[in-house]
């Protein structure tokens, strides 16, 4: 079965949103720990991060949010953040405290493959990544590889990137670890298209938008439509 990962920005409503996403069919959840200067993120997640920071979602509050989310759901929870947060908190301390709060692994968007070998984390590879680096990333990754479907930042696009098929093919040649495709996947049609290539998908910006605009019910409905799409079921009209 294809895997479906949903990204949510850490915040007061996150535990309820996470439960809704899991009810809708999410297999794992990425919890964004906001950073003031998120280089890998497009406008939606950048703005969500700004808002979260304005509401006080500093590292300690994010860890508490993680623990509260863990109390609500059983799926793997993966904090996704930037190196500056770990630098300030301490890499080992962050690893240990986040694990104690229920983190299953980590994603650090600007921490290179070679850095911080003691922090188990999901590695990202991009269309620009050469095959020998994909192999190294697969060796070092924690459970699955995050395929960055396109050269660009997070956010919605018109269609699934034409770069994804080639990236999947090159990654398959190097490794057997599951491949989850993210960046630029928002609609059920895009989810289905990406899931036909990869072993699963990650949806961030659109999920963050819907969570903000429509709350847990809207998010659950949306995740359910993605679930149906990645499972190739025909979605019943509402």
């Amino acid at each position: 079965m294809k895997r479906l990962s949903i990204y949510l920005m850490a915040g007061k409503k996150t535990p309820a949103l996470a439960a809704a996403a899991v009810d809708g069919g999410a297999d794992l959840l990425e919890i964004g720990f906001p950073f003031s200067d998120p280089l890998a993120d497009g406008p939606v997640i950048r703005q969500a991060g700004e808002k979260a920071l304005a509401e006080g979602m500093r590292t300690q509050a994010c860890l508490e949010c993680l623990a509260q989310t863990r109390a609500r759901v059983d799926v793997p929870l993966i904090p996704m953040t930037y190196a500056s947060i770990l630098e300030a908190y301490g890499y080992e301390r962050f690893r240990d405290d986040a694990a104690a709060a229920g983190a299953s692994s980590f994603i650090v968007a600007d921490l290179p493959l070679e850095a911080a070998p003691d922090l188990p984390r999901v590695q990202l590879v991009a269309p620009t990544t050469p095959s020998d680096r994909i192999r190294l990333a697969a060796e070092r990754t924690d459970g699955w590889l995050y395929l960055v479907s396109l050269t660009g930042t997070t956010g919605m696009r018109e269609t699934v990137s034409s770069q994804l098929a080639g990236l999947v093919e090159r990654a398959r040649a190097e490794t057997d670890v599951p491949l989850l495709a993210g960046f630029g996947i928002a609609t059920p049609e895009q989810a289905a298209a990406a899931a036909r290539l990869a072993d699963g998908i990650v949806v961030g910006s659109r999920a963050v938008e819907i969570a903000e605009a429509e709350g847990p019910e809207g998010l659950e409905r949306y995740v359910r439509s993605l679930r149906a799409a990645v499972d190739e079921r025909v979605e019943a009209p509402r």
Partner: protein
Amino acid sequence: MTSVDTGYFGPYGGRYVPETLVPALDELEAGWHEIKDDPGFALELEGLQRDYVGRPTPLYRTERLVEGKTVYLKREDLCHTGAHKINNALGQALIARRLGKKRIVAETGAGQHGVAAATVCARFGLECVVYMGSEDMARQAPNVERMRLLGAEVSPVEFGTRTLKEATSEAIRDWITNVETTHYMIGSCVGPHPYPELVGELQAVIGREAREQILSAENRLPDAVVACVGGGSNAIGLFSGFVDDDAVRLIGVEAAGAASLGTGRAGVLHGARSSLLADEDGQIADAHSISAGLDYPGVGPEHAFLRDSGRAEYVPATDEEALAAFHLLAEREGIIPALEPAHALARAVELDTGLILVGLSGRGDKDLATVLAR
């Protein structure tokens, strides 16, 4: 070739970037190492520095600035485009051409690097997009007009601090998106490896010339070399000429409200680990300076290393002190400095030492509106 273990100055530097950019940084590093050992490149760069930029820039002995002390100014303000930024932009344009990149993205604060980037792009026929915070566009309007006249697209950045920090983030996001066709022409000795090293080497011409010139004029080395530090490229270039001369004090002057070295902590911003203005959670703090070029919460990693090693010292100057030095130089020497090097002048004139060399990194035309409004 992947070099996360290289590209460090002590614990500072490195490559903290999204994976998409890592291969581009490898390509840039390889291209740079290839080109810098190429005699043809050196010859072409020297020719352009001489005929296009106007190098060597003079080392001017001030007459009336301060009594009882000898203060020399390294006149980077006399470079084509009015600041030292052109030294770096020119070198990077040659690298971009070698790498086959036809599109350039750059960030700018005061607009001096943006103008330099737009200038070399016009000269080499490259497409140029400059990201600039909307607050900086308002306070450095003449440079916005200059960039547009030179054919560059100036793209306003309307979020966050609306200054150099956000402009840099947006330039990097553009680069992530267009990495196959685009070279990121970073303006200071900041950013992921190899940029700090590359920009430092392209600016080292300032220090090489200054050392030769002061020895020729005074038959001895200066007691102190003083330069302003925002990202720190003019300072690193000037310091590089004297860093092996242990008796020469190296003094970097930061804006008091943007003292990444004086009051900062170790952190990661824009691809490098350095000393930053950040809170205890690692969130980057806002910098504040009258000078757009110094209004940046980070600094080049080599400066953080020079601070820790004790080889260079870093001191602050306030907006008011910089303004006073701005007027002093204008009235006593007939030279209108940019507000950035006015910070260096403010500390230099009060040094208790005989022979002082100050980096005058740019001219002040762009700052007239800011100064007259005070």
